[in-house]
């Protein structure tokens, strides 16, 4: 806890338990912990900043000096032909890959080459292209992994302070149930997490990510292999969550889906940003069309 940005991340619930050193720090910085509204206004407008990011695998340059930003409150689309390096960028941002150069900044904090959990601590959560199966868990168990910093995740607390664990677990269970209801999949709560359909898994994954209370959520192909009805549901849900304040960055091949949902859209080609603009601008741009049609010139 060395800078004000970290302090601004603390949620109201956690604020009461913030130790004295943090409180002193805030005062030293000229702000107090209780005027959260001011702090929120102070939060950077740019929630994710990718600058000059580079990554190559042997001779293959997967990310070539990519630079773009995601503004708070937007649904930003990240598109590009196959092999453009979209997933690599996701892995670089979320800490799964180590970059060869460049910086990633989340909420004003430099997270370049940090561990995924450290990136997540800054409020950046990601999902995966193929839904991850959790064997031997029910849907609500799988949901309960979502919340960050659960007291029951400390082995000692389980024995020294079971009451706190119980309280947090009950609250999380209620939250999970509420979010499942909002996603209209609460009937699946006690189903085995491996027995639901691919589309439902995508919904569960999105719902679980929301339990982590992300400031920015990275979705890797949220509707790949999902039927049109569920696709609309997912789009609605993403829009709803966005209105409630979550920023999104999503990779998607389904152009109709991206163009109807995302604004702005960033186009990647051969590891670098080809252009950025509104869906209309993108769809009429010659260079984008050329990149998609695979014009080698």
């Amino acid at each position, binding site marked *: 806890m060395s800078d004000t940005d970290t302090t601004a991340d603390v949620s109201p619930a956690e604020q009461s338990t913030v130790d004295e050193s943090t409180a002193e720090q805030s005062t030293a910085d000229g702000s107090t912990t209780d005027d959260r509204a001011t702090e929120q206004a102070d939060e950077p407008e740019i929630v994710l900043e990718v600058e000059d990011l580079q990554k190559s695998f042997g001779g293959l340059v997967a990310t070539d000096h990519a630079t773009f930003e995601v503004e708070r409150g937007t649904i930003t689309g990240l598109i590009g032909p196959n092999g453009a390096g979209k997933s690599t960028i996701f892995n670089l941002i979320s800490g799964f890959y180590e970059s060869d150069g460049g910086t990633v900044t989340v909420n004003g904090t430099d997270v370049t080459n940090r561990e995924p959990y450290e990136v997540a601590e800054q409020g950046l959560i990601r999902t995966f292209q193929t839904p991850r199966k959790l064997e031997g*868990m*029910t849907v609500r168990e799988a949901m309960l*992994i979502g919340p960050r910093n659960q007291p*029951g995740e400390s082995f000692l607390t*389980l024995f020294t302070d*079971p009451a706190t664990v119980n309280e947090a677990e009950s609250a*999380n269970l209620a939250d999970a149930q509420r979010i499942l209801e909002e996603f209209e999949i609460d009937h699946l709560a006690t189903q*085995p997490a491996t027995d639901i359909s691919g589309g439902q898994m995508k919904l569960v994954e999105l719902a679980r990510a929301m339990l982590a209370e992300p400031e920015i959520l990275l979705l890797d192909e949220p509707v790949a292999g999902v039927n049109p009805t569920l696709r609309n549901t997912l789009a609605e849900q993403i829009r709803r969550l966005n209105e409630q304040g979550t920023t999104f960055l999503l990779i998607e091949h389904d152009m109709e889906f991206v163009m109807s949902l995302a604004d702005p859209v960033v186009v990647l080609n051969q590891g670098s940003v080809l252009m950025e603009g509104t869906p209309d601008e993108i769809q009429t741009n010659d260079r984008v069309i050329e990149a998609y049609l695979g014009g080698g010139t």
Partner: protein
Amino acid sequence: MSYREDAVDYWSDLTRAEQGVSGSIALFAAVLLVGLVTGGLNPTYFLFLVGLAGMYALMSLGLNSQWGFSGLINFSVAAFFGIGAYGAALMTSDSSPVLGGFDPILGLVVALSVAAVMAVLIGVPTLRLRADYLAIASLGLAEVVRLLVLNERQWTNGSGGVRGIPRFFENWPILSTFPEAMPVIEIAVPRIGFSIPGLFGIIPGLDVVILSGSLIVLDSPFYQMLLNISLATIFVGASYLVLRRAHRSPWGRVLRTIRSDEDLARALGKNTYSFKMQSFVLGSVIMALAGVFYAHLNLFVSPGDLNPITTFYVWVAVILGGSGSNRGALFGGIVVVTIREGTRFLNEFGWIPFDTAPLRLLMIGFLIVLVMKFRPQGILPPQRELIWPDAIAGSETKPERHTNQQTGGDTNE
């Protein structure tokens, strides 16, 4: 509601696997009881076997909290067991080449601490890598520990082993004199015998005759064993309760997520390296606890106790019981000891024309093949949702039974 209805409710609440296991345990207990009452099974020896079962149950619980919870492949069960046994022996024995003469409680603390440090040392370089590397490193550790114990005579007494280990309760006020203070009880067993005639003289018959005048003697070794069993019960019970709570907690849930998909846990902000380390150290300490118990049960430890075969037996126990299930690990540990020790009696049936004892390993191997084929998830895998019990009690629904433990093969329950 009457007790009877309660019992019926309880029974019908159990899953089929639970009913099956309860049934076989009851049957097995009945057979043992008959053995004890007829004098066919020496009570002191029987208690020794119970102690062995407790020891294996501890090691299975330890391995389960590594492999069953987090998917960590540890092939050095015998090494951590050996560290526990030698730690306790060298600290407490009066013929110890290094320290010796300390209180068993101190020996326990030191042995467990050494095991924990060793687990951290092996975990630091390997737990960040893929799962296979831990497997290889632990395989190496097992041999290194065994060879060190065998060759560093100035510290471990080498192949001579360590003798003169005190009993665990030696310095305790009442318990130290308890075995001698108890009255010797002798029970005469009436002559019981039966025979199953052979089939037309082709297949030899079975003839079991309990010798007339055989006597069940409950003397001080028996009471001594009884004390050992109480110690085993305390160790196993405490470990089981700790693991059960941990397994149903958010902590255990993160471990189970790591086992299924570590990347998912990382993406959701869990420091998986730290969680794996905790799981690895916890399991290793419980294995060392088994070693401490063994040192005070056997009163002698030697490098032979660190043979890799122990690791193999414990793996069999965990796979047989159902990975990820604490009750399964307990059950598996007991089954393995039953097979290991039970087959010793097979030679007493004269009509088997070869020595059966060396076939034990083959039988266990065959058993594992059968389990993998017909019940890959093990005999008693987790049967219900694992959510903090009080939290789930607060919501309307009770923990759901699982319906999907099979990782392939038939449907369960």
